[in-house]
């Protein structure tokens, strides 16, 4: 009983503390379902004074650009995650084998990329002038195929597997690649899940790749589209004009531009915000597993 009473102030603190994380989301939702005029005269409110779904109607009427960005983002997120998991697990496996002769230099080769980088400008010149990745969907995928920190995380997990498994398979005449995908990979589902999720989240939230390398609207990622919408109302007008629904003329002066912004934000960010917290424990784990030590 005594411990429960001592807990009360702590719980009150945390209830207020959690409000600090919940209220911002409520603010976005309520701004998106407020009547445009009410919003402009009264400002953003926690609970809308005059309720309206007008903004969502506009978004649904001309979803062209939004749908397109959704497609682009889903495509590159999945492809990049899948490819990078192949590259990274393949690389982590030899480094986890104590008998592998070139383990030390290769590990150094990888870790050095964590410590030093060429910087934005040389990368930009390489990507645009020599690899011709500007305005190309592969710019979302190729530069993110491997990440030194993630390779080390995967390697550490592999090292934790009993070495006798690998040895006995080798004695039975299995080739390295067979050992890798028949024994090591099936045993490593936890780390593969964790790192895949970290990658997926990073790709999904990627806005700066498009900021730097993408000019054509067809290739905008979701987050970059959102950023453009927050920056300029023009974008919303363009979307309304290119409405594929024939016969519907939209009066641009009455376009609920403020509320549309937040409606788009909800439509674009909502699904992931509901899905990702379910995998919460993987994210926390992913960072603590990373014992970089030799």
């Amino acid at each position, binding site marked *: 009983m005594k411990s429960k009473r001592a807990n009360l102030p702590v719980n009150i603190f945390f209830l207020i503390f959690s409000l600090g994380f*919940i209220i911002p989301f409520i603010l976005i939702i309520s701004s998106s379902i407020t009547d445009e005029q009410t919003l402009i005269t009264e400002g953003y409110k926690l609970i809308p004074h005059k309720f309206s779904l007008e903004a969502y109607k506009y978004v649904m009427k001309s979803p062209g650009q939004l749908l397109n960005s959704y497609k682009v983002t889903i495509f590159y997120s999945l492809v990049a995650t899948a490819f990078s998991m192949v590259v990274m697990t393949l690389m982590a496996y030899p480094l986890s084998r104590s008998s592998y002769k070139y383990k030390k230099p290769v590990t150094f080769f*990888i870790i050095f990329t964590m410590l*030093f980088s060429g910087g934005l*400008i*040389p990368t930009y010149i390489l990507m645009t002038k020599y690899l011709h990745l500007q305005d190309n969907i592969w710019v979302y995928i190729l530069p993110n195929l491997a990440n030194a920190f993630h390779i080390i995380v995967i390697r550490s997990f592999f090292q934790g597997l009993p070495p006798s498994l690998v040895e006995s398979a080798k004695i039975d005449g299995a080739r390295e*690649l067979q050992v890798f995908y028949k024994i090591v990979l099936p045993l490593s589902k936890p780390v593969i899940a964790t790192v895949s999720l970290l990658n997926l989240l990073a790709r999904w939230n990627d806005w700066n790749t498009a900021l730097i390398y993408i000019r054509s609207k067809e290739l905008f990622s979701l987050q970059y589209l959102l950023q453009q919408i927050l920056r300029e109302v023009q974008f919303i007008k363009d979307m309304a004009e290119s409405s594929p629904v024939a016969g519907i003329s939209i009066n641009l002066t009455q376009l609920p531009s403020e509320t549309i912004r937040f409606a788009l934000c909800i439509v674009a960010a909502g699904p992931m*915000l509901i899905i990702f917290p379910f995998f919460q424990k993987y994210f926390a784990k992913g960072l603590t597993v990373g014992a970089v030590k030799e």
Partner: protein
Amino acid sequence: MSKLKREQVNLTIKKKSKWGVFRDNFELSMMLVPGIIFFLVFSYIPMLGVIIAFKDYRNNLGIFGSEWVGLRNFKFFFTSQDAFRIARNTVGYGLVFIILGIVCAVAIAILLYEVKNRLFLKFYQTTMILPHFLSWVIVGYITYILLEPNMGILNQIIKFFGMEGINWYLEPKYWVVILPVVHVWKSVGLSCIMYYAALMGIDEQLFEAASIDGASKWKQICYITIPSLIPLMTVLTILNVGGIIKGDFGLFYNIPRNVGLLYPTTDIIDTYIYRGLQTGDDIGITTAVGLFQSFVGFVMVVATNKIVKKISPENSLF
């Protein structure tokens, strides 16, 4: 005796030739090929590209055609008035973020440890970690709702108390507080959960024994809880120490919305380099700034690791 044995062993195991070693490791080496190509192309070639920092880069002449200018780019930057501003902002915010990040995360983790109700615990953890799943763009939306001068929540509150609303996007001085608050808001949940996980590893008997001996809650925190968190704190600090000079571009670009008037307190090396890329002139100078940043970050991480290794080897990173 032992010497004799060693010689015998040497006799029985024939030293393999270099070719033999290579052949034995061939299969494993092949698995590294995609990754090595990746790092060569996307990490090491840009590293060579830093020679632009020592050249007067002209787009039409290319990297190799442009003229060498020695350290002129560095000199030009360090004598410009931007240098002091962006260096002060980058390092200043970097230090504040690290210290504030640790203090908040550890304090909240210790408080969270006092919550015994499983359901409440889960609820607090989930709300805290939500911002981690948001991109900086969405966080930009949230700060916009709060700070918008006419309709924003903060100004509504200020006006409610009868004071004059503040145009946040025109007043640099407030950003010294706004940016750290936003940073902590986004990152505290995840690091707090990591510290909490470390706390769960402490043997409860330590606390029981301490309270039998009459140690107050505060004493227990000082002598049991915090010392047991120190290994994790060191590892996270070493990982972040390079970040003192490497600012979070997402935060500094999306939250102040690239407003020129705010540059005195919001411009950091990374936003400066990005603008250099946008305008396209002074590519050499911008590259020099980037190289300087990478180099200082590198030195800081290696030095911190060395120091930690001296004091307590088991906490060092590599």
